[in-house]
């Protein structure tokens, strides 16, 4: 799986409390004036999802939330805004002894008969009332 050099994702904020929303925009530029049908591995859509995955000593637990899909035009162009809400009952970003929980927003370029490209941006999910207190995963050691 590679990266799509024409795909750009930007976020308003990269920190959100549980139950809050990550907002941002996604854009995909056309390839040198070619129509999408002329491009090798025709782009069908761009998908954005909010995910978490554990790392550390234990086997990986992961989950994907709130996927949104944007169809592309005839030149493979996308320009859209998105909002992904963090479920209130999901885990927070955590950096412990045996367990780490990392959150990321992943954009995938869905290609026909070709491997999808992806772009991943790390984000921070913090406890309720944690705004202004956290600038890294829980716990913040003194």
């Amino acid at each position, binding site marked *: 799986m590679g990266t799509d050099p024409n795909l750009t994702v930007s976020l308003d904020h990269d920190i959100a409390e*549980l139950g809050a929303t990550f907002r941002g925009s996604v854009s995909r530029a056309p390839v040198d004036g070619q129509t999408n049908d002329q491009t090798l591995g025709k782009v069908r859509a761009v998908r954005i999802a909010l995910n978490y995955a*554990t790392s*550390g*000593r*234990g*086997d*990986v*637990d992961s989950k994907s939330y709130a996927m949104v899909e944007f169809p592309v035009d005839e030149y493979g162009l996308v320009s859209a805004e998105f909002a992904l809400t963090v479920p209130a009952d999901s*885990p*927070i970003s*955590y950096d*412990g*002894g*045996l*367990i780490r*929980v990392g959150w990321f927003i992943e954009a995938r370029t869905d290609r026909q008969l070709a491997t999808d490209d992806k772009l991943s941006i790390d984000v921070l999910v913090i*406890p*309720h*009332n*944690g705004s*202004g*207190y956290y600038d890294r995963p*829980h*716990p*913040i*050691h*003194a």
Partner: protein
Amino acid sequence: MLGLVIAGALLFGAFVAALAGAVFFTIILFLITLAVSGFVIPRALEARAWHAAELHLPQSPLSLGSVTAAEFVRRSKKSTKFGHPAQVHTQLRCVESVTYTVGTDTRTDTESMFEKRRTVDGGFTAGTFTATLPIQIPVERGAPTMDLGHNEITWEFEIKGSGRTLPKRRITFTLTVQPVLAVPESLPQDAQDA
């Protein structure tokens, strides 16, 4: 009661095996009997004299940084007058637990991320022991309760009686800590330093 029946049956089996001359089998059955008895007998004796332990929390679930006082209650089944002073030892722990696969084996590792021990005085009133136990959830160690499948975080509150009257057996209560930060401005400094 069932445990005592099992222990009795095991002891009878060991006796029969000894009569039959099966030395190895006798030793194995005798050791199993000892282990079962060691587990069952203290609980059986405790259940004859005491009702189940109770822990009353003014708020549940708890939050990160919350400071509260739980009431521990142990009611005696006997009408004995208790004049002896009594204390309980408490231990609050946050434990990470992970499972992972090595080949065809599934292994589990645990690590304590936070521990706080206290000794608290209590008192008897009409055969009931009560103690007010402080519980302080730190902001800067441990984490909210979670169970993701292979990765789990739990909070345990362990209580053990001290003195001549209270049972000595450790009792463990599981606490739930939600992913909510107690309002930062209201957090006492020692809650953050705990």
